[in-house]
Every structure is written in C-alpha cells, then in structure tokens.
C-alpha cells in the first residue's frame, strides 16, 4: 500500500515531473450507495464480472471472483452483465 506522500517544500520534490506512488491509498469504496453481492451458489466462475469492472476491484481468489469493497464504487456493471443473475444489490446504510 502506498503511504501518503508529504510534499512540504522544494526539497521533497522529485528532480523531474514523475509519480512517486500509486493511488491505492484512495479507498473509493466510500463513494458507494449500492453494494453488489455475489451469490456463490449461482456463480459459475465465468469471470464476466471481473472482465467488465471499470475499477479493477473484482479480484480473482482461488479461481473465484471476490469483490474488493475497499474500492468498489457501486456502479453495478457487474450485476448488469452477470449472465446468471448471481449478483444482487443491497443498499448501503
């Protein structure tokens, strides 16, 4: 995980314009109003949801799709595209 990079002054600046870390510290899961939930009984592991996630936050764990709620923005493309209707939608509190 990238630590927050503190740039206080010129001395902390890189010699040229370049990035010093990834955006992974930015937990976009807090943007979510609706939560997609996979029903593994219905899921056939076709990975179509993984393929179409614009936030690259459906992980592959032991050949199964696992939604990373730290980053999932709740766009629901995965639920819309799942051919098995295996992804249900739950309202976030």
């Amino acid at each position: 995980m990238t630590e927050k990079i503190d740039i206080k002054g010129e001395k902390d600046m890189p010699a040229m314009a370049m990035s010093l870390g990834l955006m992974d510290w930015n937990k976009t899961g807090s943007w979510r109003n609706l939560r997609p939930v996979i029903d593994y009984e219905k899921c056939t592991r076709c990975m179509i949801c993984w393929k179409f996630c614009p936030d690259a936050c459906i992980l592959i764990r032991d050949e199964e799709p696992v939604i990373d709620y730290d980053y999932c923005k709740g766009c629901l493309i995965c639920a819309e595209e799942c051919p098995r209707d295996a992804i249900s939608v739950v309202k976030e509190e």
Partner: protein
Amino acid sequence: MKLTIPEQELMQSGHLACQGCGATLAMRYALKALGQNTVLSIPACCWSVIDGPFPYSSLKVPIFHTAFETAASAASGMEAGLEMMGDKDTQVVAWAGDGGTFDIGIQALSGAAERNDNIMYICYDNEAYMNTGIQRSSATPRLSWTTTTPENHPKETPKKDMVGIMAAHRIPYVATCSVAYPEDMVKKVKKAKDTQGCKFIHVFAPCPTGWRSAPETCVKLARLAVQTKVFPLYEIFNGVDYKINVKPAKPKPVTEYVKLQGRFRHLTEADIKQIQRTVDWEWERLLKMAEGCEETEEKKGKKKKK
C-alpha cells in the same frame, strides 16, 4: 475458470473516474494488451484527472501529461528519444479524448500520421468534452444534448468521420474498438503493437455522467451501439483494405440505444427515424468499402522489424 483477456492488471483501483466510466475500461483493456513496456502521452482530458493528483498515479506505466493539442507530437518526440537511446521495444502510445483528437489535436496527429511515426494513437471517444463539463466536440452525434448544444440549439452536423480521415493518411493500421468487446480490443491493440509505423485506434467509451445514463448501462450501451450499427467495429489496413469485425445478423433499431440516454431524451419520433436512416446509409457505405477486401487484408500489414 478461463479468462478471455490477459489477467495482468496495470490499472490500479483507487483512480478518480466516475462510477461506470467507459474511458476507464478502455484504459484497462489497452494496458492488458500493451503490457508493462509502454509509455503514455496524455493530453488534457478526463484521463489526466482519473489518473490521480501529483505525486500519485493509477497506472503502473510511465505517463507524460502534455498540453491539450499535443498528444501525438509529444508521443513522436518520445519515440524519437527512445530510438536515439537504442530502445526499439518500448511502445509509445498517445492516449487522448475525442476533443483532443477530433478537434484540437488533429494537426499534431495528422503530422505524425503523414510522417508515419512509429507510435500508436488511441482515442477514447465519449462524444464530448467531458472533463470541462460536457461541451460538444466534433465527435458529438447529431442532435445530442450537451451543455453547449441545449435542446433549443441542437447540434445540426453529424459526427466527424475521424476513422476515414486517418485512413486517408494511408497509415498501416486503423481500427475501431468498443469497451463491450474487450477480446476484440485486446486483439487489435496487440496487432497494432506488432505493426511498424503509425497506428490509430478509436475506442467507443460511454460516459454515464455526460450521457445522462445509468452507470450500470455503460457496457450495455457500448454493445447496443455495435448491435444497432451506430458504432461498427472494423479495421483498415494501409488505408484501403477494410475488414468488418462484427456484422449483426439481426441489427437492433437505434431506438433501443437512444432511449437509455438522457442526452437524447428530447428527440422526436421523426428525429429517431432520421437517425435510423443515416445509420443504415453509413452501414451500407461501409459494406461497400469492405467489398472485395477480404483476401488482401493483413497480408499487406507491414510487420515490425525486430
């Protein structure tokens, strides 16, 4: 479990795109095809924001953020620099929006194409200037709502035929892609990478924010655009050899595509009929262009010198 596109993820979660952003899917697929040995030249566009603020990035490949009109010239410069250093493997990619491509960046792009510089240019097309608040571009379809083409001042002109313009430069490879067809897109970007010279790829990338459409319909809209023939998938080799990749057996009426988007909400039945006629006419024209090309394509694509 079988994956139909590469597993490698060079786009990091935590990026700043809106929910259901097609431009983000386009980048994810492009990088899966390009791999790690890639440098991007990105002019002002949504992607300069999506990537994240300095000193962070969402991409695991180097990016050069450049001025709005300079995606292609910056890429040509980087390519020349790499060549001077003896690096023949790194693929330089200009990555720009439709505004940066169809409008302000067209002269830099035309220059790079005319010189046949060894760069790949990928335009993600969301059909307006989204980053600055949904202003019309020359890629905006006729009659579409934008903040500069309100209902009482509709855009009367059709979408610019950018693919035709690029083909007219007789560059080795031009292709259209859609975020609803990732396998096709990965294949085309790989093909472009293996081709020496200037390559142009036009990706259809729905924008829920600007199109006033539900985020979950992003992929569905991109698919409908192909199934209704609004955005055909095809390749052009050396500017003359056409190959249509998807020929919908039973094309859907354009209404199905149009009705899901707020930007077309004001259209009358007559407007939609007119759009249908234009789409049918353009499709017939494309079929004619592709006639007799079947045998000669690909063979003529010059392979990259190793």
